[in-house]
């Protein structure tokens, strides 16, 4: 027993000594960047990971100091932001609309700190007279917050065109996590792209799983069940589709696994290039609709470093590289040329994507 007490006492003393020296270590004068993730975590292979890729690039190329904090529940958002504020972080990157309110609150209380929020922009009340600082975060634009938004329908349009050009069965499919604009924007562009292909080629490719006209389609109701991804893919294949675009984060990996096993369908990845993020499914990935959050985040950090950071709204488009389509697997030179032409049409405004 005596030995035991000794060991415990030694441990306590050690921890006290160490905690005393734990606090210090102030950084140099490098620009400090901190990213607060939403619930998906830093290695979600999507949203948070892509945004952090931008931070990592800035660390490598601009010499900034970058780190992240993961949120495991709603109450962590404010806490993690506060942690970065306490460390005198220069630019805080928050990811996702769930952090909208806490980001606005912190931004107002700390006007000297800059913020960039992914997939959100103030004001964000959809014409609803919500209370200031409540559900919508802020009813006015905040001068120290840059909202990073993406016109993903432009890239979805290209994906729809590529899918229509690649299908053997004349049917292509898509499904989403839940029926909300950030998800359905992919699907709207996708359907439009297919329709455009039909007009141009006199084809009759059919889209399953989404109709812009009805504003409804197939939704799994979640962003985490790989089983749902599998069963949705299976039923779409039974209905005759051979290209599927799952807009539901990791759910799509379940679909990819099904396609790989059955060999009966191809997948269009979303958010990032899936041949990189999920390389094990490369053989069934047709292409990916990329929301280049890394580009947007990197640009925001670069502006911070250059001293040109300005609040407001950044809109990622095909033109500025904020959104894009990955290489289409096995595409003919003809299809590549067509996609380039369509892309130009979207950029110069002659083709509508919504």
């Amino acid at each position: 027993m005596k030995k035991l007490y000794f060991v415990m006492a030694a441990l306590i003393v050690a921890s006290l000594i160490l905690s005393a020296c734990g606090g210090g270590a102030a950084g140099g004068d490098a620009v400090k960047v901190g990213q607060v993730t939403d619930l998906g975590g830093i290695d979600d292979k999507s949203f948070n990971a892509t945004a952090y890729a931008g931070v990592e690039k800035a660390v490598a190329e601009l010499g900034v100091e970058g780190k992240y904090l993961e949120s495991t529940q709603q109450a962590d958002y404010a806490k993690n932001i506060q942690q970065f504020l306490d460390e005198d972080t220069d630019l805080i990157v928050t990811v996702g609309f769930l952090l909208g309110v806490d980001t606005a609150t912190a931004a107002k209380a700390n006007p000297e700190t800059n913020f960039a929020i992914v997939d959100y922009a103030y004001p964000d009340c959809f014409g609803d007279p919500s209370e200031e600082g409540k559900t919508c975060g802020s009813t006015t634009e905040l001068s120290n917050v840059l909202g990073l938004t993406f016109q993903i329908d432009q890239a979805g349009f290209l994906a729809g065109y590529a899918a229509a050009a690649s299908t053997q069965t004349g049917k292509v499919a898509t499904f989403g996590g839940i029926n909300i604009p950030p998800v359905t924007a992919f699907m709207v562009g996708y359907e439009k792209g297919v329709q455009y292909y039909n007009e141009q080629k006199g084809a009759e490719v059919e889209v399953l799983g989404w109709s812009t006209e009805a504003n409804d389609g197939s939704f799994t109701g979640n962003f985490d069940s790989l089983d749902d991804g599998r069963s949705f893919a299976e039923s779409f294949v039974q209905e005759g589709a051979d290209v599927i675009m799952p807009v539901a984060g990791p759910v799509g990996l379940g679909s990819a696994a099904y396609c790989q096993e059955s060999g009966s369908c191809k997948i269009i990845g979303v958010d990032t290039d899936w041949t990189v993020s999920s390389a094990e499914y490369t053989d069934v990935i047709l292409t990916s609709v990329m929301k280049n959050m890394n580009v947007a985040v990197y640009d925001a950090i670069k502006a911070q470093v250059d001293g040109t950071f300005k609040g407001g709204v950044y809109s990622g488009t095909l033109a500025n590289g904020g959104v894009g389509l990955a290489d289409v697997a096995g595409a003919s030179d003809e299809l590549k040329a067509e996609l380039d032409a369509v892309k130009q049409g979207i950029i110069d405004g002659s083709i509508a994507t919504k």
Partner: protein
Amino acid sequence: MSNTTAPAPDAGKKEKKRSALAQELLVPVLAVVTGLIVGAIVIAVSGENPFVAYGALFAGSFGTPADFIEGFQIYFSTGETRELVKAIYPFTESLVTATPYIFAGLSVALGFRCGLFNIGAEGQFFIGALTSAFVGYSLKGLPMIVHLPLAILGGALGGALWGTIPGYLKARFGAHEVVNTIMMNWIAFKLSDWLLNGPMKASGFRPVTPNIEPSAELPRFFADPLRFNLGFFIALLVAYLVYWFLFKTTLGFEIRSVGANPDAAKYAGMNIVRNFVLVMFLAGGLAGLAGASQVLGVDHWVGQGFSAGYGFDAIALALLGKSHPLGVVLSALLFGFLRSGATDMQSMARIPIDIISIIQGMVIIFIAAPDIIRWLYRVRAVKKEETVLTRGWGK
């Protein structure tokens, strides 16, 4: 504990009691220490310095003395509170994190006392959060003195209802509560998904509830960003009430008797069925309070991913606290400090937050298998009555 073997005739009783308490505390304390050591090994293996990590963990959960002193100095000389707020932030934030743990831990502990294994605390937590949020945002124009208690009560009742269903099924049909509470969890998760996307959704497309009215918020003691609120003291009060209920009332005695030996309790004329339902009602209510305290005190709205698994951690908590309200409060504080300090550890030492889950997991293993601890530290087992945690199938 060498003095246990030499009981003096007069001072014997007191001495015995003290050493029994020490025995009672020994295994949990050693389990926590061992968990931390294993955690340190994992950190070291992953190539980081465990001392730096635990230093940051400590600073993140309690704050650093230097900051305290500096904060007070600046406050007294200039009246500027900024540094002081920064200094007390970690400690208060740990208490904020501990609050739902206390409620949820009490919920599971109460079940254990009656021989019921309430795995459903997480679901009851969700339902309690949603019902209290509903009361919080749907009623408008009430004074706080009415609205706040109503919202708290709403949360408790929501959780209680969710707990009563498996309790009733167990009492009436003998359906095992473990299976049913797990099922009720899933129903609660899916129900909350639906509610957040439908009836309870704020205007706009996002799956979140509207903010609760200010009159339903648990008052905070300091200005932003400090979130320390009345909920913590309510939790302590409720812990005392649970203690009083279990150990000072006839009903509490009945519940413990049913837990210890249902056949004997039945023979003694106690109503087992009623006790099962009652305990699950109360346990559900406590878990519901955990959800309510989180909504009304910290978040003020509910979105998807509202809980970080408080209800599941609560099972570990109750085991660590030996299903005694005081033990639960202490374990909840430990979990709260670990969870809260982890933010600092993650940021300053770049240790993933998951390490905390590993430490918690190890602690639970050591609690569940105390022989490992006894063997590791050469502690002899004392023959005594163990609290019945749960009975097997079909009894």
